């Protein structure tokens, strides 16, 4: 890695030593990866989404592979917010920016998760996972209805002084409208995109590949959609953006930053190689060296037209 390049960046006031974070749901609670990488070499990690109570998730099978991607229906299995604070947070390395992801089925419960995380030692910021089905709205995701999303962000904003990123659902007509809603309700930043609703069928058995029928598509298959949405959101709001969606290489990171992302999250690729985040960081370094980029921040929004 070239020592000459300044890799530091900032995501809604959280200083990052480099722009590569690991995405929620793809790095566990961090410790699972410690045998493979030094977590402190990453920009940060976004831990698995937390609910008030532990959740055991869907019965198997939960995942299926599709071209350049996978569909999952894990259903947000997690240890619960209290166990996270008591058992998971204290064993993470000091100095690692840890983003806690909050998720629930009701707005007041989301707010309660945020309140519990408020001031928890070691939490750099909260990322709201807005892709949960909202029972009261007939099962659509919180992030799919501007009014529901507004109410969610408002309630969580009131519940915490922590920096609040909202992770947007891509399953919408206008991602820009959703971004504006979050900005209007006081979010500090946006993460995008979450998994794309998808489905696969086993034609031999004539059954859905997953018993849950629908699942979330992730991996390089969604990268061009994610990039388009980051680009559109950059035009719509001033909030800092964390780009997510099939990022597999340093060049992918550059593309998201050029379109306006201040940092990125690596997700599904960590499944293919637990060191993926650091490999991508090194590729980003090589890009910067090749193009005479002195500080990686110069790339943010620097798309030539």
């Amino acid at each position, binding site marked *: 890695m070239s020592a000459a390049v300044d890799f530091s960046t900032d995501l809604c006031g959280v200083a990052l030593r480099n722009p590569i974070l690991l995405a929620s749901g*793809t*790095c*566990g609670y961090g410790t*699972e*990866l410690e*045998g*493979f990488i030094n977590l402190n070499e990453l920009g940060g990690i976004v831990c698995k989404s937390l609910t008030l109570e532990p959740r*055991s*998730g869907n*019965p*198997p*099978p*939960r*995942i*299926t*592979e599709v*071209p*350049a*991607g*996978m569909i*999952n229906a*894990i259903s947000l*299995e997690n240890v619960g917010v209290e166990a996270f604070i008591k058992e998971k947070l204290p064993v993470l390395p000091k100095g690692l920016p840890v983003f806690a992801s909050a998720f629930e089925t009701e707005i007041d419960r989301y707010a309660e998760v945020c309140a519990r995380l408020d001031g928890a030692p070691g939490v750099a910021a909260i990322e709201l996972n807005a892709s949960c089905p909202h029972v009261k709205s007939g099962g659509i995701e919180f992030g799919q209805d501007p009014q529901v999303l507004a109410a969610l962000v408002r309630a969580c904003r009131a519940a915490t002084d922590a920096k609040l990123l909202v992770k947007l659902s891509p399953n919408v007509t206008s991602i820009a409208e959703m971004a504006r809603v979050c900005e209007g309700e006081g979010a500090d930043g946006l993460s995008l995109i979450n998994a794309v609703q998808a489905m696969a069928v086993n034609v031999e058995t004539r059954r859905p590949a997953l018993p849950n029928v629908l699942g979330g598509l992730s*991996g*390089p298959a969604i990268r061009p959609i994610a990039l388009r949405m980051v680009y559109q959101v950059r035009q719509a709001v001033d909030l800092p953006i964390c780009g997510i969606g099939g990022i*597999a*290489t340093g060049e992918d990171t550059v593309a998201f930053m050029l379109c306006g992302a201040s940092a990125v999250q690596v997700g*599904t*690729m*960590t*499944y*293919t*190689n*637990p*060191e*993926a985040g650091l*490999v*991508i960081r090194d590729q980003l370094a090589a890009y910067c060296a090749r193009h005479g980029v002195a500080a990686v921040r110069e790339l943010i929004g620097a798309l030539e037209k």
Partner: protein
Amino acid sequence: MSSAAKHILGRVIESGPLGIRVQAPGWAGHRPGQFAMLTLNPDPHYPDPLLPRPMAVYRGKGEELEFRFKIVGRGTARLAELVPGSSIGVLGPLGNGFPDPSGSTILVGGGTGIASLYEYAKAHPDDVRVILGGRSHADILGLDDFQTLGVPLAIATDDGSLGERGLVTDLLKPDSNDSVFVCGPWPMMRAAYQIASDAGSRCLVSLEAHMACGIGICLGCVVATDQGFRYVCTHGPVFDAERVDWEHAL
């Protein structure tokens, strides 16, 4: 947790429709029954097929590892086509593997599940009896290797083309002092567990599941047990059969 596990950029020595041999520099060694995740395209610029494939180590000698499979989909088809010298990602050793024997042990293997058992038989030839099964002669992988070990060996095939005509479980007659270790198709493992349980034998099963990461982060590979969902990758792949919820497990 397998703290010795590493992600290694390996090289294909040879590959074909029945299996693959790879050179994995820095491989830390493994126990019989452990597995690796094989990444077909370690260059992330071309990430398709995307996910690594979990494979039991059939046989290892230092940093040279052999895996046996049958072509069942895109992943195994691509593995079979890899030419010598190709790059391949090797993540491992993963999972718990089988425990050392505590007396007489019967190994029961069906189809590609046989691949999980060979090294155990090799390591403990005086403690094991082996029963292998498949649809026909061609499904009994590693037959020569097992015969070379000189361990007691019984075989059943559906079509009678090798050994007895019938199921491996027809040949399984344990007593309460035997341990029974099983790897194969779900119905076979379930039937073997039933026989072992009726005989008062301890029964361990090595499970297979759709798996994206192999290290406990994707949570894709759960199996239902009396302790709730457990991960085949980090809690297994070897499970005590009496803890598995056979009605709802996979």
